[in-house]
Each structure stands twice: as C-alpha cells, then as structure tokens.
C-alpha cells in the first residue's frame, strides 16, 4: 500500500540563543568565517523540559494546525536520543500522554541527521506491511544538553526542535525510492563518547580536549570532527543523489525542490554546486533554528507548505546525512 506525507508541524523551545549572545560568550570567534555557516539564532530546550515533552508539543501542534483527530492515529514512530526512562519506551509513554487509541502500534529508534528520511521509509513500511493507515512520525532533538560550555562550534551550529509528521496510506505512491548507505567505521566523527554502556563516566570524562583548530570539548560531551564530516558529506551525498535520480527515472532538473538536512549553509552550497542543482530549487532554511538534527528537513518542508509551494504534483528530493556515519535519500511527491 503506498504512502504520502499528509501534514507537518514543529515545535521550538522558547529559550533563544542569538549570535549576539554567542559573540558575548566568544568575543574572539572569527565572524566572517562563522557567517558562512548561515545561522543567526537557535533555540535551546528549557530546564526540566525533556525531548519527549518537545515531541508531545509538536504532536499537539500537528493535531491543532491541521485539524487531525488523534483517534485516527493507528501508529506512532518516535526518533529520540534521550529517552525519559531506560524502559519502558518513551514512545509508549507518549502514546498515553497523547491519549491515542489502544489499536495503535508504537516503536522508537535512535538516529540523527538521517532520521527523518529513515522515518518516512519506516512509516511507509508499517503502512505497507502492518496495515497502518495514519502514522504519526515524531522527532525530537535536545542535543544542546550535551555541549561543553566552551564548545564554540557546536554552540554556533546546533539548535533544538521537535517535529510531527502525519504519513498516510494513499492510492498513489508519494514516497520513494530510497537510496541509503552507512560507514560504521566512521562512528567516532560525531559522538558523545562517555556516559553509556561502552564508556561509563569516569573522572577523565570531563578533561578538556582542544582540537587542532582550537575548539574545546571532552569525552563526556558532544564532539564533531567538522572537517571529517564535511569531507564525508561531499564524497557521499552527490553520488547518492545521482543514484536516486537514476532509480527514479528523473534528471537533476526534474525535481521542483531539493530539501537536504541543514547542517551548515557552506557545506550545502558546496553540495549544491557539486551536484549541479540550480539555486532556485535548492532550499536553505535553518537561519533561525540552526542545525536541529532530525527536524531540519520537516521544518523546511513545513515552510514550503505554508508558502504554498508544495502544490499537488510537486516533487522534492529529500536527503539526510551525518552521524553514524550514514546517508539516505528519497523522493517525496505531493
């Protein structure tokens, strides 16, 4: 049974961290090079607010903005790196909070930058193979909780957000095909190393490391090898898009828009030039949210919808890439 994206909403926490706030904290940071990243403000999860609280808020927004009866949801999929409890699954707790019906399947998964496109595939999968008709796909990122206070790069790039997407069964296919790949040997390039099963927190977990570019973090905090991830992206994403277009029978001029995960405007512009996408089709949309990990694609899609740009018949290439290292893309038809 085919599936399509029916509706999208998102939630941003209230606390804002602007570039003025950033430069007060890091007065020696190089403004002209940071400007190339393309962020002017971002939000941070509030004290006492959990990832599931944000996902809950995004779901309520979806129901309200799109006049959706929660009782019509027969599957909930959550992507979340910060569960409320070791067990039970946070997605089950959310099911209860959202007062969804009993005849509803629920599961969650852990993924980052690739999560949304994976989520669309999983939603389509449960529609096709498990008889679901209305799948609520929720994402939530509270990555700012993991940053070291002196980690200039992460504080500039990332923001927190949650998104809610309704994927429904459809008479015509609105998603696919998918092209995906993984380089698990690159797992250390984006990591919070200590604090879970492999490396429990020890007294060395919070000893400061300074990388070759002067950025500070620790093993107990989030760390990203920016240059390594940039190289990974430019070496894997263009070939993935070529493969996707070929698999879809499309030329690179056929899609109406290209909505990629939004980690860094400079990276995405480099990708756009390498792939050869015209500027007017390539969406840059994260200036006021930052890199919100799993939510960058749905936030950009929601804005396109609000602008009336996703009329019936519109085709959009979606691509997620990053932590894992992983990459995945699909074509969404509206």
């Amino acid at each position: 049974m085919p599936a399509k994206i029916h509706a999208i909403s998102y939630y941003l926490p209230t606390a804002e961290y602007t570039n003025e706030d950033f430069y007060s904290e890091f007065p020696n940071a190089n403004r002209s090079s940071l400007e190339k990243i393309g962020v002017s403000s971002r939000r941070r999860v509030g004290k006492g607010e959990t990832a599931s609280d944000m996902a809950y808020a995004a779901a309520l927004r979806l129901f309200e903005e799109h006049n959706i009866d929660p009782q019509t949801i027969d599957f909930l999929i959550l992507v979340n790196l910060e569960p409320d409890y070791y067990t039970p699954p946070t997605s089950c707790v959310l099911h209860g909070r959202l007062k969804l019906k009993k005849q509803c399947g629920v599961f969650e998964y852990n993924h980052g930058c690739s999560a949304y496109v994976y989520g669309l595939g999983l939603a389509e999968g449960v529609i096709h193979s498990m008889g679901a008709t209305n799948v609520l796909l929720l994402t939530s990122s509270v990555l700012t909780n993991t940053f070291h206070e002196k980690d200039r790069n992460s504080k500039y790039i990332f923001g927190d957000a949650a998104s809610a997407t309704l994927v429904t069964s459809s008479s015509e296919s609105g998603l696919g095909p998918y092209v995906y790949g993984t380089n698990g040997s690159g797992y250390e390039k984006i990591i919070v190393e200590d604090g879970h099963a492999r490396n429990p927190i020890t007294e060395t977990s919070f000893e400061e490391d300074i990388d070759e570019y002067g950025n500070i973090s620790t093993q107990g905090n989030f760390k990203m090898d920016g240059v390594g991830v940039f190289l990974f992206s430019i070496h894997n994403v263009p070939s993935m898009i070529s493969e996707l277009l070929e698999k879809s029978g499309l030329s690179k001029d056929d899609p109406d828009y290209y909505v990629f995960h939004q980690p860094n405007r400079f990276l995405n512009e480099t990708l756009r030039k390498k792939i050869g996408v015209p500027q007017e089709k390539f969406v840059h949309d994260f200036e006021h949210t930052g890199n919100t990990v799993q939510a960058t694609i749905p936030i950009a899609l929601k804005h396109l919808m609000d602008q009336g740009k996703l009329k019936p018949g519109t085709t959009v290439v979606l691509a997620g890439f990053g932590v894992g290292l992983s990459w995945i893309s699909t074509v969404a038809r509206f």
Partner: protein
Amino acid sequence: MDTIEEFISKVEQELDGIPKGSLTAQSNYRDIPEWSSMHALIIIALAETEYDFSLTGEDLRSCQTVQQLYDLIKSRKS
C-alpha cells in the same frame, strides 16, 4: 591548472575575511588570523569545486605552506 598566483588569489577570495595580497606562496595557511576548522573547510571546498580535487584532512595536516598545497593539487591532477 591555474598558476600559483591565480590559486592564491582564489584562496584569498574565498577566505573573505583576509586582505588581498596578505597570502604568499610561502605563507603557512595556519597563520591566517583565528585559523579555524571553517577555514579548512573553505580550502577543501575550493579544491573540490574549482579543481575537482579531493583534499583530505591528512593532506591539510601534511602541507605547511600555500605552495605545498598548490603543488599537491597540481601533482595529483596531472
């Protein structure tokens, strides 16, 4: 392949915070004021889009000067 002067001019243009003429062939690019990972990304992106050349992190670490970077790109392309 561009001359070293053309290469330097393109690097300066991309690193738009630095004054024109401030880089020479013997400059150590790490001496660029507030050298950061963003500068490294800019050089890598320039190599990709202008010269269709994939610089690695290791290449950047092993080169000291603009001349060495230029020579590396030129030698691998020919």
